[in-house]
């Protein structure tokens, strides 16, 4: 009796599936794993994959499995999954480009497990730098000054774009990074410079965080940059850092900053005079 009931229930379901497939010729079905979080993900994934009379994809947000039916004479799973990855979703064949993932809505930013295993390309570079440092210090330790400098460069980029809110946020990150530097782990030369500059570095970055307009932030950035310059000279970074000068800022007294690129992008004027200035020293 029970089995009869089963048949009765499954028959319409079966019919329905067949009807679905009937609209597509040479249909082939497979199940694939696609990362994602929520209903919004489901919609994005399916829109990216589906093509009328060619591909129909149904993704389940609970088990992350998608059932893909497609016309095997017209397309293949590679093409379909590539479209899904380009929409921002890692899957068994392709990893999404980083910028596509970044563009996803906050609720859709799924844990990139596959991606984690492969490391961010950025991480790999930092790791290389670490190993270089290790050979000198004989301990597995991150170069703390690199972290500090990264936050400084983020702050500088925010100032180039004259983005007050973002600059405040980056300055906050910077002051936190500065406060958490373990000075006993610095090399001797670094330690000496550190003792001279760290107080004013923290003070400057905190006041940038508090400033309400970009002009006030830029004024503080002068002191910050001068002290950072001293620190970078002993930081032993793998990549060159460019010390640059804008002769006009600060009522013609001029102001300096540090950059990872040789081309000038002026954080004191931003788009008003983006390329004003020149490199005065290359720190290697």
């Amino acid at each position, binding site marked *: 009796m029970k089995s009869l009931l089963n048949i009765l229930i499954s028959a319409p379901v079966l019919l329905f599936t067949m009807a679905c497939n009937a609209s597509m010729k040479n249909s082939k079905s497979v199940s694939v794993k696609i990362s994602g979080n929520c209903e919004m993900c489901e919609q994005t994934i399916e829109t990216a994959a589906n093509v009328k009379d060619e591909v129909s994809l149904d993704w389940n947000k609970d088990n992350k499995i998608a059932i893909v039916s497609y016309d095997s004479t017209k397309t293949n799973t590679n093409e379909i999954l590539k479209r899904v990855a380009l929409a921002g979703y890692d899957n068994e064949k392709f990893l999404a*480009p980083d910028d596509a993932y970044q563009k996803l809505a906050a609720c859709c930013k799924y844990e990139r497990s596959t991606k984690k295993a*492969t490391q*961010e390309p950025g991480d*790999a570079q930092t790791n290389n730098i670490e190993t270089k440092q290790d050979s000198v210090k004989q301990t597995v330790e991150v170069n703390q000054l690199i972290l500090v400098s990264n936050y400084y460069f983020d702050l500088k980029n925010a100032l180039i774009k004259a983005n007050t809110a973002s600059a405040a946020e980056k300055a906050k990150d910077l002051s936190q990074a500065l406060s958490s530097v373990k000075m006993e782990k610095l090399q001797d030369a670094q330690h000496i410079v550190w003792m001279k500059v760290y107080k004013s570095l923290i003070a400057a970055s905190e006041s940038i965080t508090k400033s309400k307009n970009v002009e006030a932030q830029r004024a503080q950035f002068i002191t910050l940059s001068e002290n950072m310059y001293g620190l970078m000279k002993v930081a032993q970074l793998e990549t060159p850092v460019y010390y640059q000068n804008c002769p006009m800022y600060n009522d013609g007294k001029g102001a300096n900053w540090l950059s990872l690129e040789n081309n000038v992008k002026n954080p004191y004027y931003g788009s008003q005079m983006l*390329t004003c200035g020149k490199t005065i020293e290359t720190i290697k």
Partner: protein
Amino acid sequence: MLKITIVSTLLFLSNVTLAQKKVRYDLFVRDTIVNYAGKEKHAYAVNGQIPMPELHFNEGDTAEIYVHNELNTETSIHWHGLILPNEQDGVPYLTTAPIKAHSTHLYYFPIVQNGTYWYHSHTKLQEQIGMYGAFIIHKREEQKIAEYTMILSDWTNMKPFEVHRRLHSANDWSAIKKAETQKGAVQSYSDAIADGSLNIKLKNEWKRMLAMDVSDVYYDKFLTNGKEEDAAPQFKAGDKVRLRIINGSSSTYFWLKYAGGKIEVVASDGIDVEPVVVDRMIIAVAEIYDVIVTIPSDSASFEFLATSEDRIKSTSLWLGSGIKQLASPLKPLKYFEGMSMMNDMIKMDGNLDDMGMNMSLQQMDMNVVMYPEITGAKEDIKNNSSNADNRYNSNALSDIVTLNYSMLKSPVKTTLPNAPTQVLNFELTGNMNRYVWSINNKTVSETDKILIKKGENIRIILYNNSMMRHPMHLHGHFFRVVNGQGDYSPLKNVLDIMPMETDTIEFAATESGDWFFHCHILYHMMSGMGRIFSYENSPPNTQLPDAKKALQKLYKDDREFHFMFQNDFATNGNDGELMFMNTRWNFQAEWRLGYHDMHGYEVETHFGRYIGKMQWLFPYVGIDYRYRKMDMNEVEKNIFNQTNTKDKRQTICIGIQYTLPMLIVADARLDSDGEFRLQFMREDIPLSKRFRMNLMYNSDYEYMASLKYILTNKFSLSTHYDSDMGFGGGFTFSY
């Protein structure tokens, strides 16, 4: 004593032969059938493969290369970027004997340099369908580093001859094909309306421009090492891989980017440069870059993506093994932004105006207005407040670092010897509508060779006054690109020059013989965009006993006539035209053949020459024959009150055509019966992707309007109304 001398001489000689290793290659050129894009097509394979085999040498070797031509046509091989004796350069009829069908030719030359180079056929359009390959010369003591060669190319299912012919007849089928992947590529009126940019399109036509094209040809596929996707899984995490990237395509520029991080450029056109790190770069046709990329991890393979400049399609190389990490693709071009930019830059006389921006060295890229990743999506543009100087500076506008020539620096001094300098001014000129390409408005065959003296320096100031970029290539020499790096200016042999740019290059004249300087876009070269540098007092070239006659063979390339034919088979008659034209001359015939006497029969032929750089003026002579039976007592008069002779006319006429703004062709003519006629005509108005309209009116009160729907590259549905023949419908065949 004598014995010792002999022995030591022998010893010495054998030492010399040891040091100069002879490296022999045998290349067998054969016809083959390939299927790259769904259809079996004819191509050329060398030793059974496309691209041609990768040749390896060490600096100091002697190359001994036998080319066995097993084709039924002649061929040639040019060694691109190599410094070698003139007769080994491989330009048939200019430096080297052509390799006749079923014969073998020996190339023999010392290898005096190192780096990445390539080789290709320099005969007709053979390079398009398979005759390109990598030529790698290793340094004597080379630092061992993982390396991989990436030779890029473009493939079309259309025969190269057809591609070339269609380019000359302003056929827009290639834009229609592009529109399948990228909406708006035809830049029709309806595309413009949908974009809210009809005013821009109309202004564009007012300035007598056809739809703007970033590239001329529609390609079915782009290839890496002869494959749509190539993979190099052998590389491991942390490996630094030297990619030797050669653009062996016939007319495609590629954007390069890497999913695994930044790209470090270490050599350009075979010669080392100071390493420079970028996010992306463009590689011009025939250009070469050596770059170093790092493999970030073992669990994924990373995409090295090459996208055609028009962004229609791409090809990839996967580095490393595992799940595929994609690079983000380039978003479609904002065509109407580009058009609007062209409207600002083009003067009413057709010349370009850089508005005082002193553009050079790829730094100011006008095309950035079309790149969403640099200038934002269309809707954000209005908020962009950057100042005028940076408006086109890609690196200033965004965080993405794009390579340009000002960033290239030689690690060693490249200053020229102290010698007298000959300065040449080359203005790159072109006519998109008729696909005429030239330098100073003269093709190769229309000018004499440029005489240079051994020992002097040659400085060329190039100005690109055409609407397309051109990769200019010099044979047998490296030139310095004067790019602000002073004594350390980089050496190159291909220079990409964008519209409106002025670039200066210079080289020391150290060789002898004749050397070609030309645009490396195959179809531009074949249209005559080039010059020949000829050393004074060079010894005669043994490979070309009759140099004068040989040169005429070379000139034939750009003197070639192209044939175009179109006929509308309609219910009310046949309506058609044919053209037989080259750079300057055009023979046109038009006919309207009714099915009975009342509709009449008429044929008009013109033979004339295009005048001026823009080729808007076309004086001609012609014959007009027509017959039409009229009703009794019917007399037709024209606007000028002259009696018409449409019923029976056999006259000779002279006239002049002039292209007006909006691309309207005005045609004024006077025939041997003394009758004057003025006619206005606009052909191929792009109403939508596939709809085209023609309009005509003349002072004989004749008028015509027709509408065409393009089905394939040969057939269209058409309907027209003609004042003589009335309304009709049918189909049009175009060749």
